[in-house]
């Protein structure tokens, strides 16, 4: 019997929704391998995070509340996770494919000598445990197997829907025994302040491309997003041009999203952008160029100037 550890991801004292998707993945893994799904919360003054995570369907929850973990540093988090893995006979460690999971999990895998699957979109048993993951910007899906006894996986949240909350599981204190690593210091986090939902969490996303021409012109995108209580996204080109903050970038190297409704405004549809949004349920493309590749993935295309039609659309909704 071997267990599965899920790392909680949190920000400003609250649990991030992507953690629920990681639990869904872990429960699928447990159904295949047996064992318990064990949540691990690392941080300092994290009562609210733990209280919510306890209701996510875990079999057991470890809470490590130590000053060393007040700020996230992988150099300190990774050895604590390794201890939790060893103490709890875990064979799979997972978290989401967020910048947190991407930064942390390979370091954990290195310390454990474990093989790691990046951005898992499926886990199944076919003569042994196997995982699916995208590569080449999603142009190919590969099936991989991991030969090491302990396996580490980052999980693509859009492929694993959050399960309904259940009665809270009891919390167990966990002592990491980790002392802060010398020569590394968290300096600051400059958060993009927004009243809008998080991109990875939104039902509706309105994204703009470089075709909008300026930061100010992103207003028409934001107005539609706000009308639909949606989030705002951007292409790499728009971010590179300074029209939008990096946190809005959707694509191969940015965020992967799958909302119910995705508006691609003045976006040509480079493969690197499609990699981040083609799992959306309904895609609407608005572009002046009828040959733009975005129309090949769009359910509804409107060949038009965004500056003419978007304000009209916003006002009619």
């Amino acid at each position: 019997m071997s267990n599965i550890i899920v790392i909680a991801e949190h920000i400003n004292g609250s649990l991030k929704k992507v953690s629920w998707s990681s639990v869904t993945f872990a429960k699928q893994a447990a159904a295949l391998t047996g064992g318990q799904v064990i949540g691990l919360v690392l941080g300092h003054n994290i009562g609210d995070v733990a209280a919510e995570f306890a209701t996510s369907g875990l079999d057991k929850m470890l809470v490590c509340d130590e000053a060393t973990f007040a700020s996230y540093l992988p150099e300190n988090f990774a050895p604590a996770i390794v201890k939790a893995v060893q103490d709890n006979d875990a064979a799979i460690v997972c978290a989401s494919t967020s910048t947190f999971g991407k930064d942390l999990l390979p370091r954990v895998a290195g310390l454990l000598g474990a093989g790691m699957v990046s951005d898992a979109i499926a886990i199944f048993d076919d003569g042994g445990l196997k995982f699916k993951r995208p590569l080449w910007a999603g142009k190919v899906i590969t099936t991989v197997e991991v030969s090491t006894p302990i396996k580490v996986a980052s999980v693509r949240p859009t492929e694993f829907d959050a399960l309904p909350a259940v009665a809270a599981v009891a919390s167990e204190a966990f002592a990491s025994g980790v002392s802060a690593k010398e020569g590394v210091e968290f300096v600051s986090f400059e958060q993009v302040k927004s009243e809008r939902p998080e991109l990875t969490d939104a039902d509706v996303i309105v994204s703009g491309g470089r075709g909008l021409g300026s930061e100010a012109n992103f207003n028409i995108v934001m107005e539609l997003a706000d009308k639909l209580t949606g989030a705002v996204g951007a292409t790499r080109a728009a971010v590179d041009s300074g029209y939008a903050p990096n946190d809005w970038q959707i694509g191969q190297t940015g965020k992967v999203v799958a909302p119910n409704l995705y508006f691609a405004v003045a976006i040509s549809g480079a493969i690197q952008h499609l990699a981040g949004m083609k799992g959306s349920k309904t895609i609407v493309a608005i572009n002046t160029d009828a040959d733009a590749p975005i129309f090949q993935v769009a359910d509804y295309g409107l060949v038009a100037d965004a500056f003419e039609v978007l304000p009209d659309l916003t006002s009619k909704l």
Partner: protein
Amino acid sequence: MKILTTVKRVTDPEMKVKIKADGSGISTDGVEFKMNSFDEYSIAEAATLKKAHGGEILVVSIGPEASTKEMRTAMGMGADRGILVQTDETVDSDAVARILAEVCKRENPDLVLMGKQAIDSDRNQTGQLLSAYMDWPQATFAYSIAVSDGFADVGREVDGGTSTKRVQLPAIITADLRLNTPPLVPLPMLMKAKRKPLEIITPEDLGVDITPKVKAVGFEAPEARAAGQIVESVDALIEKLKNEAKVL
């Protein structure tokens, strides 16, 4: 300051990827190769740091002999010498990190500066794994790097905004998209690069077993989206979204 940079020879990201009929791999017939784009940022940044702080830039690649082409490009961008760890085998991120760890032990760099991910395998693991193996600090997804007094202040692109981390050297930093704009390499620099030292060794020379921990056993095309439709007006779009897609 001695900076170790890495390059990976990858398939051109603009090309169509052809999966072999039996799903056993990717067909590379007639495929163009180039330097992994994230490696261009790290090498350009290494060149900038060398201008300010002096020192040496070493470029390391792991792969087939043909990778020397991308290494020469890196030398044209400013790398002083190269080490190719030659293998025709498929190596996973872990093997790459363990090879780089052995090179680090041999070369003792002050800084390892590498791309945050390869745009073919999209794994985003090697820098962090190398940090674990060396027990050095890591600063991933860098958009700015300032080095002084044996420390690097690294601006990082993270979910929710940006973050700053201070790491003592030696450390590993991985480059994100907005670290710099890699310059075009002038032809005379590329010509000069051909004369720079390039050592070829093997994983065995470094004592590294490259048997993969993570092995690909199948390849398939993703599910294609059904063809969509063009609507003629905003009103028609609203009607479709409400009554057909039922998302409004």
